[in-house]
């Protein structure tokens, strides 16, 4: 198992380097940020001083070298260490993503199992319809609808506020918005995988021996259907992080998505780089965790 983990860790290094290189090249292609850092009336000398201050006068390989050493430097706009800005926002996004994942997994697995338990029933059709709607709705639109209904019309929840991003009542709408989108996917996949597992010979054997339907579903079908579901949950967790960009903007959450969105509009290259790096690390870590979980769920994969 240790060799497996070490091998996967080594494989992630070139991926990370590739991401840094691609981000660096794309940001350089977007032009010189000096124009936004100085007055429109600044002289060539003033522009040069600013370029020196932010290291923009250094050769490209030196600038790239700094990022490869994970030295993200100062934000052009906030003049604060990028690591500090990114980490502050990451806490907000982590809270949001974790909450959304709990909603998605709990609702998705339950709905999927009930649909598989009673296939082609009214609940199954309703769940399928709800799932189609769920995967089709853009996050920011769903957030606006929920705000309109629960905050403006009914007044049950407060309107989005950036000043209290850690309080439960302010988290309900963004967490539900983000969670519902993944719920649909997990529910449909759980249903499909479980129905497929139910056609296997060992399930038929268990049924022949007189096992109860519930025990068969939870004890035999679900554990064996879990491998693809865990994959989707893993990739979805990373997807939730990036999906948070729109949800955070629509619900005023001061998370990583908002920080990157603002940094892009202000062409704050170090912050964009910091945010992308953090996203990349999370994606890699989640993929690694999923691979390890595979090994635990299906020992055949570990030995392959």
């Amino acid at each position, binding site marked *: 198992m240790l060799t497996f983990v070490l091998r996967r860790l080594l494989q992630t290094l070139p991926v990370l380097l590739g991401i840094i290189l691609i981000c660096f090249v794309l940001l350089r292609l977007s*032009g010189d*940020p000096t*124009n*936004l*850092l100085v*007055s*429109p*009336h*600044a*002289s060539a*000398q*003033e522009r040069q*001083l*600013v370029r020196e201050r932010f290291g923009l006068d250094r050769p490209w390989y030196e600038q790239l070298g700094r990022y490869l050493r994970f030295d993200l430097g100062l934000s052009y*706009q*906030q*003049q*604060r260490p990028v690591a500090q*800005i990114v980490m*502050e*926002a990451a*806490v907000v996004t*982590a*809270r949001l993503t*974790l*909450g959304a*994942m*709990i909603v998605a*997994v*709990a609702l998705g*697995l339950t709905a999927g199992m009930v649909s598989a338990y009673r296939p082609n029933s009214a609940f199954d059709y309703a769940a399928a319809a709800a799932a189609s709607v769920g995967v089709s709705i853009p996050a920011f639109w769903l957030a*606006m609808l929920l*705000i309109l209904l629960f*905050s*403006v019309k009914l007044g049950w929840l407060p*309107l*989005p*506020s*950036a*000043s*209290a*991003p*850690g*309080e*439960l009542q302010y988290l309900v709408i963004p967490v539900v918005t983000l969670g519902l989108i993944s719920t649909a996917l997990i529910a449909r996949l759980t249903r499909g995988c479980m129905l497929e597992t139910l056609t296997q010979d060992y399930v038929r054997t268990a049924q022949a021996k007189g096992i109860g339907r519930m025990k068969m579903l*939870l*004890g035999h079908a*679900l*554990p064996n259907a*879990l491998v693809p579901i865990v994959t989707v949950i893993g990739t979805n967790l990373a997807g939730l992080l990036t999906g948070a960009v729109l949800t955070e*903007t629509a619900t*005023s959450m*001061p998370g990583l998505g*908002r*920080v990157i969105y*603002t940094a892009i*509009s*202000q*062409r704050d290259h170090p912050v964009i780089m910091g945010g992308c790096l953090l996203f990349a690390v999370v994606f890699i870590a989640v993929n690694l965790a999923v691979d390890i979980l595979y090994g635990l*769920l299906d020992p055949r994969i570990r030995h392959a």
Partner: protein
Amino acid sequence: MNRVIAIVVALAVFAAIFFLMLSHESSDFTASEKPFRFPLTQDPPTLDPVMVTDVDSDGIVQKIFSTLVHYNKELVLEPGLAEAVPEWTPADNSYTFKLRKGVKFHNGREMKAADVKYSWERLLSPDVSKRTEILTEVKGAQELLERKTQACEGLQVVDDYTFKVTLTGPSPTFLPKIAMCCAAVIPKEAVDQADQSRSTFSQHPVGTGPFRFVAWQSNRKIVLRRFDDYYGGKPKLDGILYEVVPESQTRLDRFLKGEFEVTDIPFGQFKRIRGEKPELVSENPALRTNYLGILMNKKDEKGKIVPAGLLGSNANLRQALNCAINRAYLCDAILEGRSVPALSILPHGMPGHDPKLVGWSYNPEKAKALLAEAGYPEGKGLPAFPLYYRKDNDIEKVVLAIQNDLKAVGINVELRSLEWGTFLKKVYNDPPELFYMGWVADFPDPCNFIEWLFHTNQWGEPGNETRYSDPEVDKLLDAAKASMDQKFRFETYNKVEKKLLEDCNWVLLEWRVNYILVQPYVKGAKEQLSPLDVGPLMNNVDFSKVEMTR
């Protein structure tokens, strides 16, 4: 079965972590305190006066800092940290400021003349300042900018409460420029302290304004508290809370629920709100003209100025463009009545604005005739002009209407949007023949439009983006710049403006009116709004006099 239990346990653990991550923050103000609450669309780029180039930062900085002089709502200069607005001394081109005694910084220390010198020399340091141009007329400023000296010769501390500024020549715009927030007075020790703690002054601003800085949580909020020792008298409000709310609809919803004292009005909702809740709408004209810029000239290989492109060399075509645009429709229908048609370069409300000076009005028949006179009857043979603009939903609506108007007379334009930084770079370095732009006055003086945007010395990036060049105009502008006679200056600027309107290097579009929503219980704020106030942050309002009667 064990795997199912493992999943349930994992979910329970995640749920526990989630609940542990929840936090309840103590409020920045007690229940009995009433802060004035502003929404922000995003974090301001800076709270350091010498770095302010945008309206949002300016709005907050003006609450924390004070300047020696400032403008009142009638756009008349009033004393701020100075006891009086100083008179110009022609003998040595100087101004002598008598400073108020007993003015305290937020750190408790008394402000003295040495602080003004330090603040202005910092404003002249290109490694920290983005606004060095404000003090370029000061004697010795150029040497300091070029780092030939450590101190500026023209900034002189006479005694603790007397500060003398010597200029290189007469400058009628020196006082208007130092009324900008960038010339605010700051304490050196606060800058040093921020540097020592590896932070920045922008993160820990200390000034002499009516409110002192308490906290800035990036992308969330900025908290200011009342400064009881404010030289203008103890402010009536307990504090000011700025909260970042990127969604315009959420800002409006929260305002209507009474969670903000003021807000902007989202596009598409202006007419409805003005109809349903007129008592909440506040209106003030802004010193802003939006226009289409036409590239007039370029420099050839030898550096000689020659006409650029078809539009730059054909006055009839430029006039046809000016006659083809239905400005009234643009302002009423497209901009929902937030603007009025621009009749001249100087917006109404700007000192020196002459209402008798009127540019071209909408006349499609005349536009067609001018087009024929230019050699392109019904637009036949005329190439399509690319029209560049900043990528922005509202600007897109405006340029689409313009495209339709021009097409109706036979002029085709291709719309090309660019992100703001790239757009500016294009206009500065590789100017297109036609581009959409706007200019907001930095200070209320016609030179801020007429000289900054049309003098040959301002070629390109410094302001003359249309590369207009006329030696006669330059001579007149130089004469106005060197004169302290306001009447002569304004007459000269009017003369130049008349010539500019004839030459048509701008297609005038609209003068923007600043509409915001203000709660009815706010007293003393909208009454102070001036044409310098753009947006909902009430930048130039003296907030020490504002109160809430809830």
